[in-house]
């Protein structure tokens, strides 16, 4: 079909949809009654006509229904349901505020049309309420979005304690992290032990593992869509928190009442400050001169929202998060000379965006976004010397640095069009200009002695690589009848880099059949394309991990995924689901045998080879979201394989082998118990099959070289012992004059399970009657024993 025919078809479809009936439109915004924060995903349902919609990411809704008596029901998890009845004779603006529900909600039935509920056409997706994320017990008392996600079926952690996620057999670089719609590259702090998302700044988290709606693209395995808080529009509120390793502050409130709000959150670790006296003392003891060294990370989220009218809003947001390692040593040699050494290692993201929401008509909602993203990774070491001898002043300065990073400039426009309650149409376009700087190494030398001066300044490394990515998408969430609903769409992308253009047309389709009011079956297909790779060590997440674009040699990655499942809502109290999936991936990258992770960008294309992969599995989830006892039980059985058999790019002799994160079983149980307003507690337990690794199980002797030769029959032929761990957390809340004080106690790894972080061969020697012999044993290293922690927070 030519492009003209497609445009004509779409135009006819839009016209016919809008002319379907003589109806009126009710539109408005749904907010939290206390904070005024807009609520995403609220179900607005007319009980008379049986039509309903869900509020969008701006909390706006638009429901077009026939004129006459209307009985609207606004329902949302954790909030009291609101009913409103009136006669509809013309278009109507209806803004609604929802009140938080009391704890004992188990008598109230809430039928939220969450993305994972039986009613939605979307499958393989979950909305995770921030309160649930905060209630999951965590290490060092630091709430962690990614670690909470690792407890969901289909989502696996990399290695113990790391924040990286592996979704349905995909690698950690196959996840798209969107913060207010803008991609984020580095989502970890401390080499992966903590995620970069500060839960205090977050309003909503939605994870898509498959059946991706057409408005998402760019990664193969998952989309994590995070929306940050707009800020309270009524009065100033805040939250102060001090934990074992970090302190956090969150402030929100109106800048101009009912018009402009702000929300700002800041988190910083203070290990370096606490350790400073010890480091200085150590420097003195070791005769190192004045020493100052440490490590910290911080993140700052800020958002300002201005409401011109109910139809128009402007949102400016900022995120920056960095990890910094620093060391400064200064020697003084009497009065005449001194020498100083400076070491700096910084890595992190900066994202800034400006978004304009405008309601073009009661049925068309527009979003225009401009954004800038920067991911950087800088290392520098500098030595400076000053000398004064025999009336001659000499000075020398030497600096070496290494830089890598990406800068993205994004422009996009997207529209939500709801011609009638049966159709929710999204369409839009975006353009993304990537500036890759895979690595730059520089040297600066300056030496002055008397009147002589010598300078040297050179930069070595790959030049900047520019790439352009364009995307067009169209999707329609179509309620064909009470029973049938489909979500179909298409995502068309193109990527231009170094004179090569890679186009991709990615169809998406998912459908739902309601078998009863509470039971549905769903199926979906999605085709995804990814134009960039992260070159990283698969054992541990290093800040030196590089993002590189596809090139003329390295082609884009593609994935086809099909999924099907059954979803059941048990008496409004719990959601039960079972999903089957199969995913086929092409042009995956793996390192060649022996490839080192150091100096990755130097000839990186030679260190990797391209191949295929596939993953299949079944996921079960039982989730209870209301009542005093909430939580979930998730179980995944999966198998993930790789095949690298292309000419010159074979691995494992061209035979299939398990992917590094292939795990057969993955079970997680999370239980939260809210006993009263003053006390709540939670417990989580996880169990998973051990990670795989490669071991040379056999050895032989080569008499001609006199050496022992290790023999590896297959890649990833060894499975580590299973991983399991239990964490508990309790929170004590107390109402104070100006707010609520919370003391949180948590214990990570309650029964001190020594889970393997890495397994290595250790050589030893022993003596017997034949003399001294050498043999080896297999040792595992564990990272985290039992870790109790405490944190204090005050919310006002």
């Amino acid at each position: 079909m030519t492009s003209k025919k497609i445009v004509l078809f779409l135009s006819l479809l839009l016209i016919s949809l809008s002319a379907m009936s003589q109806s009126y439109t009710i539109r408005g915004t749904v907010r939290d009654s206390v904070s005024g924060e807009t609520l995403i995903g609220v179900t607005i349902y007319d009980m008379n006509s049986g039509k309903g919609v869900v509020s969008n990411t701006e909390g706006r809704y638009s429901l077009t229904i026939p004129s006459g008596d209307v009985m609207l029901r606004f329902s949302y998890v954790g909030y009291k349901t609101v009913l409103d009845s009136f006669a509809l004779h013309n278009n109507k603006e209806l803004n609604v505020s929802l009140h938080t529900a009391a704890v004992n909600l188990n008598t109230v039935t809430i039928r939220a049309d969450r993305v994972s509920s039986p009613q939605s056409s979307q499958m393989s997706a979950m909305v995770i309420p921030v309160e649930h994320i905060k209630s999951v017990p965590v290490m060092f008392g630091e709430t962690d979005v990614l670690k909470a996600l690792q407890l969901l079926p289909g989502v696996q952690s990399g290695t113990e304690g790391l924040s990286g996620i592996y979704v349905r057999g995909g690698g950690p670089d196959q996840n798209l992290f969107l913060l207010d719609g803008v991609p984020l590259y580095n989502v970890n702090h401390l080499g992966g032990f903590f995620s970069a998302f500060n839960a205090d700044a977050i309003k909503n988290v939605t994870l898509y593992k498959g059946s991706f709606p057409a408005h998402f693209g760019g990664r193969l395995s998952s989309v994590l869509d995070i929306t940050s808080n707009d800020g309270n529009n009524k009065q100033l509120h805040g939250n102060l928190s001090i934990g074992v390793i970090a302190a956090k502050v969150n402030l929100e409130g109106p800048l101009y009442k009912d018009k402009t709000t702000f929300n700002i959150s800041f988190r910083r670790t203070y290990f370096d400050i606490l350790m400073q006296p010890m480091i200085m003392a150590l420097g003195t003891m070791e005769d190192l001169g004045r020493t100052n060294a440490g490590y910290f990370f911080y993140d700052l989220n800020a958002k300002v929202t201005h409401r011109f009218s109910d139809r128009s809003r402007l949102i400016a947001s900022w995120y920056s998060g960095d990890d910094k390692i620093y060391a400064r040593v200064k020697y003084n040699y009497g009065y005449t000379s001194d020498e100083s050494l400076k070491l700096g290692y910084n890595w992190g993201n900066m994202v800034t965006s400006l978004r304009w929401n405008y309601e073009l008509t009661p049925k068309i909602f527009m979003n225009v976004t401009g954004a800038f993203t920067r991911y950087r990774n800088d290392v520098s070491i500098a030595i400076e010397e000053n000398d004064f001898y025999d009336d001659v002043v000499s000075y020398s300065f030497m600096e070496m640095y290494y830089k890598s990073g990406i800068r993205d400039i994004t422009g996009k426009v997207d529209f939500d069009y709801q011609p009638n309650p049966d159709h929710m149409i999204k369409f839009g376009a975006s353009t993304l200009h990537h500036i890759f700087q895979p690595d730059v190494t520089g040297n600066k030398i300056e030496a002055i002695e008397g009147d002589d001066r010598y300078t040297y300044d050179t930069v070595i490394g790959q030049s900047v690589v520019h790439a352009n990515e364009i995307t067009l998408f169209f999707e329609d969430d179509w309620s064909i009848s009470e029973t049938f609903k489909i979500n179909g769409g298409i995502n068309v992308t193109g990527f231009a880099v170094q004179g090569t253009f890679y186009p991709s047309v990615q169809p998406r389709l998912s459908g739902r059949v309601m078998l009863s009011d509470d039971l549905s079956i769903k199926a979906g297909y999605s085709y995804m394309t990814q134009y960039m790779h992260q070159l990283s060590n698969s054992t541990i997440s290093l800040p030196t991990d590089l993002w590189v674009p596809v090139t003329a040699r390295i082609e884009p990655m593609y994935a086809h995924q099909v999924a099907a499942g059954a979803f059941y809502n048990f008496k409004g109290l719990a959601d039960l689901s079972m999903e089957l999936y199969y995913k086929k991936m092409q042009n995956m990258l793996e390192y060649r045998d022996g490839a080192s992770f150091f100096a990755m960008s130097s000839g990186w294309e030679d260190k990797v080879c391209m191949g295929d992969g596939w993953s299949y599995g079944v996921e079960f989830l039982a989730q209870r979201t209301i009542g005093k006892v909430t939580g979930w039980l998730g179980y995944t059985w999966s198998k993930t394989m790789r095949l690298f058999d292309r000419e010159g790019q074979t691995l494992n002799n061209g035979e299939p082998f398990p992917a590094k994160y292939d795990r057969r079983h993955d079970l997680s149980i999370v239980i939260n118990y809210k006993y009263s307003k003053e006390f709540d507690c939670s417990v989580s337990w996880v169990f998973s099959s051990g990670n795989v690794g490669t071991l040379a199980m056999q050895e032989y002797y080569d008499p001609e070289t006199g050496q022992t030769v290790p023999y590896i029959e297959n890649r990833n032929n060894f499975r580590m012992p299973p991983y399991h761990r239990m964490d508990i957390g309790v929170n004590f809340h107390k109402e104070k004059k100006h707010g609520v004080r919370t003391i949180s106690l948590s214990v990570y790894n309650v029964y001190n399970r020594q889970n393997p972080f890495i397994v290595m061969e250790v050589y030893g020697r022993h003596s017997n009657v034949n003399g001294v012999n050498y043999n080896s044993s297999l040792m595992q290293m564990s990272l985290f024993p039992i870790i109790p922690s405490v944190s204090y927070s005050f919310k006002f």
Partner: protein
Amino acid sequence: MKKIKYILFALLSLSLASCFKPVEFDPGEISPYPVLVSRPECDSTVKVYLSYSHFFLDDGHAYKLITDAAVTLDINGVSTQGVYVVDNDEAPLSHYFFNVRPAPGDTLNVTARIPGCETPVTAGTRIPQLADYEILDYIIDTTDIECCYFKIRFKVKSHSPIDYYSVKFFVSDSYDSHDTTGTLWSTDEAYFRQVFFSVNDPIVNSSDVSSVIDGDDGSFYDNEMVFTSELFSGGEHEFIAIFGKWMNSDERQRNISQLPVYMHIRALSQDLYRYNLTRELNSDSDGILSEPVQIYCNVNGGIGIFGASSLRKIHLTTPRFEHFNHGNTYYYYKK
């Protein structure tokens, strides 16, 4: 209060528990493989070593030799039966001996029938043609009073689509020898020492191929350079190899240009090339920070290597020209 103390003590004890512990590993069904190792050379008799592999956590000296196999070597269709030769000094060097001398281009197939093994162990290889080379320059630089530098410019010509080579250099050296009691027995025992050398070459430095030859920076420094003519798309290519040697007082007195230097260019079969390459990658591994390496194996019914080579030993001709520059002497050999 007492209880809290006990709880705290228990928690502290657990926290300080060692984070290392042995992994219990049951070798279970991992049974040893027959191992065949043999590197037939052009115009040399053939030795085939047979043993069993062992589980990697077993004692390092647990290799078991296979002494009762029936081993045949087939050269271009003509079979020969191997004779087991016991090495009394060093048992692992005991081997099956074949009094045949294969020539370049010969196809070799070995079959070992081991009692107790249903499937015979088989492997095949082909003796490669001798390397075609040319020495273009040979310079000895004695600028440094304690050390001299050797610079050899040579050309390798490839006649097949892909050829495989290994290059090594040897210089004569001497050492003091001692008897078993530690008493000095003699000084200046002459021997040939394999040297480490560097190659700084446009091919080696190009990002496309550097990783195939050596490390990340493209420059080569090792005691053996294993490469393939694929790097220069067949045809011919020039390399410049440089190495240094400390001179003892005696050597400084003598004319250093007379110092014997040998270059070994070994043409390798593809099997031996891949085996050597994977062995080298394995030994250069950065541990957990690099991917593991599967050592190449071309033995059916077992593991090991059966790879052929043809060696040229080149005695580098004494430089014929002398050149004085700022009081230093350079010795040249130029074609």
